[in-house]
């Protein structure tokens, strides 16, 4: 099964471009020659069954894992093989499948810590704004470890927002959260995309995907098996095969 041909701009000036990236873990190929390009302000959903390589793809884009092949471009800059911190400074922000908070720091300190490599002087004011946008002001002095699961997701998203990235990767940001928190997150994504921020979102919640994503990419067995709008994907036989085991 090969990935559909993805057009990449000849100058690779898009906020995020992956060119034939490969990742192997021993004998298992988790990501097999995936290519994709995301336009400024675009919200792209990445869906697929568990183990299809979605989170690994995020790690390759954000530098959490070194690639075994292919190239990663951020805003026209080749960041392949760069350490995570350098790629992060190039303008990419990500959340993790399991919230990775600084548990011994307060919510405010978590937000401030996200700004240490950016506008430090303006960080306190920005932290207030982000906390207000995500409606976590009432717990801003609580330790991160004291938050509910949904609040932890909000805080992790808030930390990414603090850095003003050009590209945000959200890994199952609404998984298992209260519907009200899901609404807060969706509103925040909408507001941020209006400012030109690009989103790549891994999500299992099809309702959210339908509401927020301009385009979907479906992964299975480490490869892209389909790409298109929600309606196109919903009627795609290859996607049904990946999810339900039906033969196309």
């Amino acid at each position, binding site marked *: 099964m090969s990935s559909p041909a993805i057009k990449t701009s000849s100058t690779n000036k898009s906020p995020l471009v992956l060119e034939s990236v490969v990742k192997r873990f021993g004998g298992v190929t988790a990501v097999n020659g995936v290519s994709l390009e995301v336009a400024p302000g675009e919200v792209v959903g990445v869906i697929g069954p568990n183990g299809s390589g979605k989170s690994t793809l995020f790690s390759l884009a954000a530098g959490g894992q070194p690639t075994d092949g292919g190239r990663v471009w951020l805003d026209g800059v080749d960041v392949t093989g760069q350490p995570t*911190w350098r790629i992060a400074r190039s303008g990419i922000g*990500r959340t993790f499948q399991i919230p990775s908070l*600084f*548990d*011994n*720091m307060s919510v*405010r300190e978590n937000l401030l810590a996200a700004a240490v*490599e950016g506008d430090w002087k303006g*960080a306190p004011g920005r932290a207030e704004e982000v906390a207000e946008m995500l409606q976590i002001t009432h717990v801003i002095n609580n*330790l991160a470890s004291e938050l509910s699961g949904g609040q932890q997701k909000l805080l992790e998203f808030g930390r990414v927002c603090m850095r003003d990235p050009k590209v945000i990767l959200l890994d199952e940001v609404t998984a298992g959260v209260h519907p009200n928190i899901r609404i807060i997150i969706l509103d925040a994504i909408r507001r941020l995309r209006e400012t030109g921020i690009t989103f790549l979102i891994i999500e299992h919640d099809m309702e959210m995907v339908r509401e927020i994503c301009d385009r979907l990419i479906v992964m299975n067995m480490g490869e892209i098996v389909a790409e298109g709008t929600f309606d196109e994907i919903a009627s795609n036989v290859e996607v049904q095969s990946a999810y339900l085991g039906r033969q196309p």
Partner: protein
Amino acid sequence: MASNPDKVRDYLFRLAAVVVGLIALAFVPAFIDPYSLRIVTGALMWAGLACAWNIVGGYAGYISFGHSAFFGIGAYTTAILMQSGIGMPFLATLVPSVIVAMIVAVIIGGPTMRLRGAYFAIATWAFSEMLIQLATVLDVTGGTGGLSVPAYLNEFFFYYTMLAAAAASFLGVWYLIEYTRFGFRLKALRDHEPAAEAMGIRTNLVKVQAFALSAAITALFGSVFAYWTTFIDPQSVLGPDITDQMVVMVLLGGLGTIWGPALGAVVLWTTNRYIWSTFGDTVVYLPILGLIIAMVVLFLPNGLISLFVGRRRGRELISRILRKF
């Protein structure tokens, strides 16, 4: 950095408490006998050493068992520079001591701080053991015979020198940890290193910076100790018991807290000296120490300081650092 009004009030309150405390400490020599003054001077030294170890152990989350190496580097640098051939005055030796320790810390910390947990602890322990062997065989260190330092028998001088060094260390670390980017970087990498890197924090660099800062403070106290005791040998300034005391004092007082290490150092050192003066040796001190540590770990996991500032995060912090093992 600017912050919310509560934080500013808290900051001013703490600053006022520190100023009052320093003024009180400045008058201590007027009210106690010379023997007690020596004990208090020792407590100040150990408080400073515990503060230094806490930067790496409590804030970066890396348990070092080799900090005696930097104490020894400071002590030997001062002792060597004060020998008759060179004859530098004591105060002039402090800067080279600190610089040598920082350079060694960068050289050692660069590769070792890429290791995790027990591997880092073993590497630092091996480094300090190597220095003991070096100091034992080198001529410049006096070998097993050690080095004598020109005597300056003025307890007041050493009390105020230790007080100044301890105060500078605590206030400096307090400011760095609570109010600067460096402190936030350090605490972030302790709590979740991959997340810290995903936010652009160059964790390997921050860890080495913390190690060098910690080494510098440790060496500073090593220098003062050498001049204070007038004689040093490999075991007295490089022995593993120096690191052990630092670790235990921090755990007892409060790992990863600003004032916990000072409290732990004062309690442990005065207990040590009291038992020594009462029973004539420090053997009985060890089981008593063990009992105290067991009680604190069981009932006050964030150390004695949690009696004053809350205990909610203690268990979590200790388990997070231990998970690195």
